[in-house]
């Protein structure tokens, strides 16, 4: 089996990508020039008298953006409308208005710290983010070198692959009891679960990138007798870098989902605990507010890694 066979390698698709061929959609890194020229009106083109164009050329991108925003708003309104109907029919679920007013209340004093379990939602989110980043950083620290190793060596791949393939489909939450026993501490066990979550996509994507070094670059290294170190430093790592960032991005996305579940188990602090605690206090409006905030932070995290992958992708093309 080839390395790439098992690897979920997601392309750099944008977070909110409209399905129509809109040039402003941040899809492919190589179309950056096109994006730029579409977004920034050329002064010469705008000033030039064009016989058949009654409108100035800069108007078109503005109109496209306005249309995208308009449709986005419409979709959002439809969703809220549907929610209002469902909430009205069920009678148990909070209506959009009560959820939004709760959200505003929560955001009024997000970093309030009233001890043990009475913390503002901003503080809870920060605690969860801290756990995610710790576990994620550990996973990157272990996963990238491990991925480079098994991507570069067939024997290492054959040794590690069975273990990875068996552990990969396991829900990371199953590791929580082991973490509890080893670390004797719920927050550290949560970080451990995030570590396990982020490890597999990082390892597999890095390995796929490292294993796909083009034949001709491999031959260059052989003909000119590159040392192992020089080969890894000058050929494998540069080639694998975009896949590594893709792996990290996938890991971060999954880790941010898993942290909520872990904190429901571990209790005490964090946004997952906040959701569970709100449910126990029959405060479903707070649950919905938390869902919205978790989603927004997820988008921000994804954009961060998308930007990072553009950065390494751009370097690839010699900029």
């Amino acid at each position, binding site marked *: 089996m080839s390395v790439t066979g098992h690897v979920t390698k997601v392309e750099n698709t944008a977070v909110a990508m409209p399905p129509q061929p809109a040039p402003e959609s941040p899809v492919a890194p190589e179309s950056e020039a096109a994006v730029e020229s579409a977004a920034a009106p050329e002064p010469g083109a705008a000033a030039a008298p064009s016989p058949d164009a009654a409108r100035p050329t800069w108007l078109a991108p503005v109109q496209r953006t306005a249309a995208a925003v308009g449709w986005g708003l419409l979709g959002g309104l439809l969703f809220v409308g549907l929610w209002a109907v469902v909430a009205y029919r069920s009678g148990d679920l909070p209506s959009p208005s009560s959820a939004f007013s709760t959200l505003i209340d929560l955001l009024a004093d997000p970093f309030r710290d009233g001890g043990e379990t009475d913390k503002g939602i901003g503080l809870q989110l920060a605690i969860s983010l801290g756990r995610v980043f710790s576990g994620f950083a550990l996973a990157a620290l272990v996963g990238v070198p491990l991925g480079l190793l098994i991507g570069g060596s067939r024997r290492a791949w054959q040794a590690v692959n069975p273990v990875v393939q068996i552990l990969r489909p396991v829900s990371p939450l199953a590791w929580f009891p082991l973490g509890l026993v080893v670390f004797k501490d719920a927050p550290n066990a949560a970080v451990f679960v995030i570590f396990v979550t982020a490890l597999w996509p990082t390892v597999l994507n890095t390995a796929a990138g490292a294993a796909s070094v083009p034949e*001709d*670059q491999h*031959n*260059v290294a*052989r*003909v*000119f*007798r*590159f*040392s192992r170190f*020089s080969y890894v430093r*000058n*050929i494998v790592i*540069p080639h694998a870098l975009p896949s590594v960032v893709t792996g990290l991005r996938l890991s971060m996305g999954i880790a941010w989902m898993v942290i909520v579940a872990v904190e429901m188990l571990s209790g005490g602090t964090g946004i997952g605990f906040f959701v569970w605690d709100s449910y126990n206090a029959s405060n479903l409006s707070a649950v919905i507010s938390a869902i919205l905030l978790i989603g927004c932070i997820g988008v921000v995290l994804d954009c961060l890694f998308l930007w990072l992958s553009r950065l390494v992708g751009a*370097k*690839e*093309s*010699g900029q």
Partner: protein
Amino acid sequence: MSQLEIDGLHMSFPGRRGIAPQHVLRGVDLQVGQGEFVSLIGHSGCGKSTLLNVVAGLLRPNSGRVLVGGQPVTAPGPDRAMVFQNYSLLPRLSLLANVREAARSANPQAPRERIDETVERYLSAVGLWEHRNKRPRQVSGGMQQRTAVARAFAVGPRILLLDEPFGALDALTRARLQEQLLELWANESTTETVLMVTHGIDEAILLADRIVVMGNPPQPSIVDIIPVELPRPRDRVTVIDDPAYRQVQQRLLDLLHADQQAVA
């Protein structure tokens, strides 16, 4: 003694579903003397690149052997450097770093100053010293291939292996690079022997001392070896009028045409 000796080389690539195995090298024997420039010419699939890769040590033959200076070849070595068909520079390294990394890797014992001096000499010789800090993708194909040529010479090989080095370039760039190559080979370097795979009849005649014509099955791997008895330096404009040039050209055209007929 020949510097490069190829004895009874056989090489097959196993067939996949529905495709018969290909017997690419069918008993190749060839001796190349010190200081000789030999071209390998033939239609696609005749095994000329495979032969070059075997000499480079990148491929192991099924049987037969390659001797360089009397020593059998089992792997790539610093006595042989290669210029690849598609430039094959490392995309993230500058032109300078591409050449330096190869020179350093092939001569790990050499002092740093000598490596730097060599790198500067060859990059200057191909006219790229001013562009040394650019990345491969920031320069033209011709400049990339000149870098690849400088890289091969900077290693200080005794045998230079060229795999259709100028195939992807336009005619003017190709002509200039051919001249630079001859200049480097004849005057500037310690490289003695050149083995070049090419598609171009005129390129082969202009550059080579001998031309090895390779064929597809059912023909033998080496159909004929044609000596080019034109005095050096050869001028690309006047050499065409030399009767010897015409003779070799006609001979090559006939052989290559016959090979195509045999396959069809």
